[in-house]
């Protein structure tokens, strides 16, 4: 009960801060402090909810359906804590948690940089609000009680002291196929238990436990780090959108760069940890199996890495008052990194990939499916729509020629190679939507030439100078 109340209040505070930040951006005077109160309240409520879920897991409160479904009483403490994010509801809450934490840091960072805060935080709080809708009691809250829907619980998970009670006999069934005995959980049983003064947390004494395949050291490390990467991917999007709002494009790359770097590094680390984990488990395809869930975290990362290099060029060319290169590219790539994170969430959580992946979560239902589509479409419309809206201005003010023998062009070409790779992985991964899959040779054969191109460009870009390099000098330098 308390958990759902906290999350609902958090959602309300989140929406409030979006509105307040928007009004501040529009020029209203007194709304900034209200927006800050709103965002801080959202963050505090999310932290409290997360602490509550962790507490419920640690104290084995099986009256919560999520705690019953994913944890057990005999797990060591590390794994027990990791059951927090073992299922849909908890993993979304973890994403929401990190988004709140980084939102607080972002708020502080942007408040020190002129009029940046409302422009960035309006978008970021919008992201946070959408995530809060996902974990709200309407959709996938981890705090829903186990009796709210009909379910069957194995008798071995029930406190045997209560099993002989006459009032409960009508709820007990046995299954011929598996020879197991169950009790039917639902509103009726809950009413009966309450009438007999039996607490659900005393009645159910064991959970379904953590999937044995996940009972591993890496379960405690890889998912939390991955969700930090996902949470941080909303930051470049917010900075890019802030630039679009103000129609000013020089400052945002300097301001966003530390965030893009940190977020991409963490996401990359998480992906590699996942590979290291998969290497140890039979049946998971070695370091990299081109599994749809693996791929869908790789695609935004590739785009993020590409954006780091083009942002670097824009920063460099702007030095000493020079013109800004790759402005449109940086806006597009920053928007797409987050859009691709949302797309990856849609692919892996909507059930649309059902047959294709070992990572498959259980079917989440139509409401979640539709909500994920709305989430994805809205941010595509905001991000890409914003760029289209400013396109004319951007082409008029930021069109430059790059010399062929320049570091700018080499870095750009390298980024394009990474983008080509991301498109390939995206197409292959999305194929199951259309009822077909690709074999791993598809990915391997296409990525190999890209790797070669990147290797060549890596070496070349070290020797190329900014703006222009003398052909003869380059030739001399590349001799041994």
């Amino acid at each position, binding site marked *: 009960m308390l958990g759902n109340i906290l999350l609902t209040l958090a959602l309300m505070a989140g929406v409030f801060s979006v509105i307040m930040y928007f009004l501040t951006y529009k020029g209203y005077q007194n709304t900034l402090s209200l927006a800050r109160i709103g965002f801080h309240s959202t963050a505090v409520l999310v932290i409290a909810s997360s602490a509550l879920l962790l507490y419920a897991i640690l104290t084995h409160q099986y009256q919560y359906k999520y705690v019953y479904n994913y944890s057990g009483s005999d797990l060591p403490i590390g794994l027990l804590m990791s059951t927090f994010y073992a299922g849909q509801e908890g993993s979304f809450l973890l994403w929401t948690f990190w988004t709140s934490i980084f939102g607080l840091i972002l708020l502080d960072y942007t408040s020190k940089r002129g009029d940046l805060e409302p422009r960035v935080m309006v978008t970021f709080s919008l992201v946070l609000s959408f995530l809060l809708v996902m974990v709200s009691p309407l959709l996938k809250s981890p705090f829903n009680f186990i009796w709210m829907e009909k379910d069957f619980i194995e008798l071995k998970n029930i406190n045997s002291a209560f099993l*002989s009670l006459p009032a409960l006999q*009508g709820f007990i*069934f046995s299954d011929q196929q598996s020879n197991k005995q*169950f009790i039917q959980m639902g509103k009726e049983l809950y009413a009966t238990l309450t009438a007999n003064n039996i607490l659900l947390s005393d009645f159910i004494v064991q959970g379904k436990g953590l999937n044995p395949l996940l009972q591993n050291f890496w379960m405690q490390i890889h998912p939390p780090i991955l969700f930090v990467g996902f949470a941080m991917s909303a930051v470049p999007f917010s900075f890019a959108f802030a630039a679009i709002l103000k129609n000013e494009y020089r400052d945002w790359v300097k301001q966003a760069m530390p965030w893009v770097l940190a977020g991409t590094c963490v996401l990359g680390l998480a992906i590699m940890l996942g590979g290291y984990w998969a290497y140890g488990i039979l049946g998971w395809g070695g370091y990299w199996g081109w599994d749809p869930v693996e791929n869908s975290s790789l695609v935004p990362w590739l785009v993020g890495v590409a954006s780091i290099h083009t942002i670097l060029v824009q920063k460099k060319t702007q030095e000493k008052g020079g013109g800004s290169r790759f402005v449109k590219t940086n806006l597009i790539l920053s928007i797409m990194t987050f859009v691709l994170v949302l797309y990856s969430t849609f692919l892996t959580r909507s059930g649309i990939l059902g*047959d294709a992946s070992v990572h498959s979560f259980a079917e989440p239902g139509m409401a979640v499916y539709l909500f994920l589509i709305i989430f994805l479409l809205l941010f595509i419309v905001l991000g890409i729509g914003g760029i289209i809206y400013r396109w004319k201005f951007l082409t008029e003010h930021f069109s430059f020629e790059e010399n062929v023998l320049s570091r700018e062009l080499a870095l*750009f070409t390298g980024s394009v190679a990474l983008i080509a790779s991301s498109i390939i992985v995206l197409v292959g991964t999305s*194929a199951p939507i259309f009822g*077909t899959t*690709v074999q791993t040779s598809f990915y391997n054969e296409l990525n190999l030439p890209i790797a070669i191109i990147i290797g060549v460009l890596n070496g070349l870009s070290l020797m190329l100078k900014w703006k222009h390099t003398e052909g003869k000098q380059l030739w001399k330098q590349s001799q041994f």
Partner: protein
Amino acid sequence: MKNKYLFGGGIIVVFMAVMIYLFTQTNVQYESSFSKVMKEGKTVKATGSWIKEKNYEIDISNNIFSFYMKDPEGNVMKVIYHGTIPNNFESSTSLVVTGKFLKGDFHATDILTKCPSKYQDQPVQQTNS
């Protein structure tokens, strides 16, 4: 501006063309109708369920695991897999086998087992206290 589009665009165009070609070469359709699978004889991902009554056979020396599958229409197919029986095979509700139909049997290179995520069916009997 022109150089950027030349190099960047060039890479994209070349790779997209190769990608489309390779896609057609490597794509594997999902197929739930065994009559199609048996007729066409090309590599597919066949979906269906294990026929419990026909059991399964494990040949350790040749590392062969074989069983029978049926599709929604009721067609039956023998599946031969060169590998070990998957962990959760017996409790699986449905299977996806990758491979092709050759000389009367389906030779699988991959088996994906799907298990019941939640106890769903209504049981038949009530226990007596």
